[in-house]
């Protein structure tokens, strides 16, 4: 297993969580959008749509557990990285789909996640492993509607150029909410975990996560609005408070 790449267990790609039908519709939309736009992005989008359709037709659409991992080198010490992550109330600051995490006691927490139509999905999680400055693992409690687990490791760079932060997250679809969860959380698990760790790095290094949400712009029109969704900009939420761990070196 190559620890530097995000991966999915089994031989299924992330698109399986949307189902091949969903992918086909999306692919067709991309293709149509790309062709009608007839401008700079058109070729790329139409091509992407075509590729997506081809990939989707090859896969058979059976859902499996998503297991995805992302590693970023962060210009900080394992101690600072561990401290920011270990306080689970910070997780909502860098996990795009997490609305809040309330810390109940030293090992238990309640997670609230953005669901469809802004509906909240809740579950309880417990910390299963906690090695100071090295590793934290957690999982949802067995009676939760959502079966998920995750872990994060902090390893110092050999030449002292920072800390490798590796996060692994698993979602097991199952139970009544499985379909909703799979669609909302699991449709791009690789993308999600990568962006979460990227934002964790930004919080530690820059004290905030970069965003353009809420900035001024001219009339977007239909094309501008579609492009915003295509570029996944709706998830780049601002972090209103500067991270405590951020040390101003510049």
């Amino acid at each position, binding site marked *: 297993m190559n620890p530097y790449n995000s991966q999915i267990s089994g031989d299924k790609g992330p698109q399986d969580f949307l189902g091949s039908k969903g992918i086909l519709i999306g692919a067709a939309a991309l293709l149509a959008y790309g062709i009608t736009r007839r401008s700079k992005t058109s070729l790329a989008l139409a091509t992407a749509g075509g590729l997506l359709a081809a990939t989707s037709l090859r896969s058979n659409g059976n859902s499996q557990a998503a297991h995805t991992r992302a590693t970023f080198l962060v210009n900080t010490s394992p101690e600072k990285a561990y401290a920011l992550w270990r306080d689970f109330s910070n997780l909502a600051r860098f996990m795009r789909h997490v609305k809040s995490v309330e810390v109940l006691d030293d090992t238990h927490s309640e997670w609230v996640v953005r669901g469809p139509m802004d509906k909240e999905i809740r579950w309880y999680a417990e910390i299963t492993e906690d090695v100071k400055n090295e590793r934290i693992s957690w999982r949802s409690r067995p009676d939760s509607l959502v079966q998920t687990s995750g872990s994060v490791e902090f390893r110092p760079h050999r030449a002292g150029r920072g800390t490798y932060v590796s996060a692994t997250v698993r979602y097991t679809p199952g139970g009544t909410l499985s379909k909703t969860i799979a669609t909302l959380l699991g449709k791009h698990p690789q993308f999600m975990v990568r962006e979460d760790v990227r934002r964790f*790095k930004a919080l530690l290094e*820059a004290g905030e996560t970069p965003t353009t949400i809420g900035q*001024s712009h001219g*009339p977007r029109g239909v094309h501008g609005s579609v492009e915003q969704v295509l570029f996944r900009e709706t998830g780049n939420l601002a972090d209103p408070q500067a991270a405590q761990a*951020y040390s101003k070196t*510049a």
Partner: protein
Amino acid sequence: MKAVCWMGKENMQVHNVPDPTILNPRDAIIRITSTCICGSDLHLYDGYVPTMEQGDIMGHEFMGEVVEVGPGISRDKLKVGDRVVVPFTIACGNCPSCQDKLWSCCDNSNPNAWIAEKMMGYSPSGLFGYTHMLGGYAGGQAQYARVPFADIGPIKIPEGIPDEKVVFLSDIFPTGYMGAENCNIRPGDTVAVWGCGPVGQFAIRSCFMLGAGRVIAIDRVPERLAMARAAGAETLNFDEVDILEALREMTGNQGPDACMDVVGMEASGHGIVYAMDRAKQMMRASMDRPIVVRQAIIACKKGGTVSVPGVYASFIDNVPMGAYVNKGLTMKTGQTHMMRYMQPLLERIQRGDIDPSFVISHVLPIDQAPQAYKTFRDKQEHCTKVVLKPWDSAAAA
């Protein structure tokens, strides 16, 4: 506020949009006093660079006065009332790239880094008023702008120096200077510079500052060639002479020690390969027309350096890799690492080594921006550089 918005290919419009607000702790809001149209804006105007959104505010060369500062910025770094020039690259100051002074490669300033990673492997920094692949930040062709990481980028300008002398510290002077620095100039070297637009003009002057003996400037616009000659360059008009033959003759069959491509993806030229490039670009089968970089590789002296400050968007065809490898060339590139150059170049301006305002041909109120884009693109009215004044009314012009 008024802002110049990209509404599609060759469609710039001035709209009234909401004033910007502080979104992150290290943001500042600048009231803009001068802002410019850059040659790289023309690539967006012509619709050649992907990932623009309709409604985007243009502009990455601007300066003004700080009117609001976020809670994450200490007063000794920046405060309300400071007069600043804002660099076009956005940098956090604390990531591994920033720590290496590779400011235009900041790890943390591009909220859409994933798009750039698909295309380039790893993402460079966010830019103002450019594509969403490079952040999609609202730009500075407006009355106000939000500046992220404002404790790192903006450089304070003392009173008494007019905007026109310092506003080009936001991009084109440092960009021309880094292009020259990337030429690895030794005293007496000969440098050939393709493109005598605004960046080319600063590149030519920077080559002489760095010790070049000769600069050979290549273009076809008479007033731009004249401007290059005024700086001491010898000039070649590619409509009139065979550039490769002329360079061979001028350098005694050696070739220039360094060749600089200050043109980029929308180069003009002659012949069948140019016609093919043009056709591919029109079909959108390729975004780039890489004539200059090909010619620079062929023209360059053995063991020499090819420096590319020109903008390219994606993949280029028919690069003479054989020549590049067999002649042992070095290529140096990059968006400008602005924070390396702004302070030293401000000092050069203050010392009187250079007055960057020589490049300005038009000063216009912001309402005239849509027409100014066309004038600049078509090189009409001897247009070399447009400075926009966001607070002047159209009637006053």
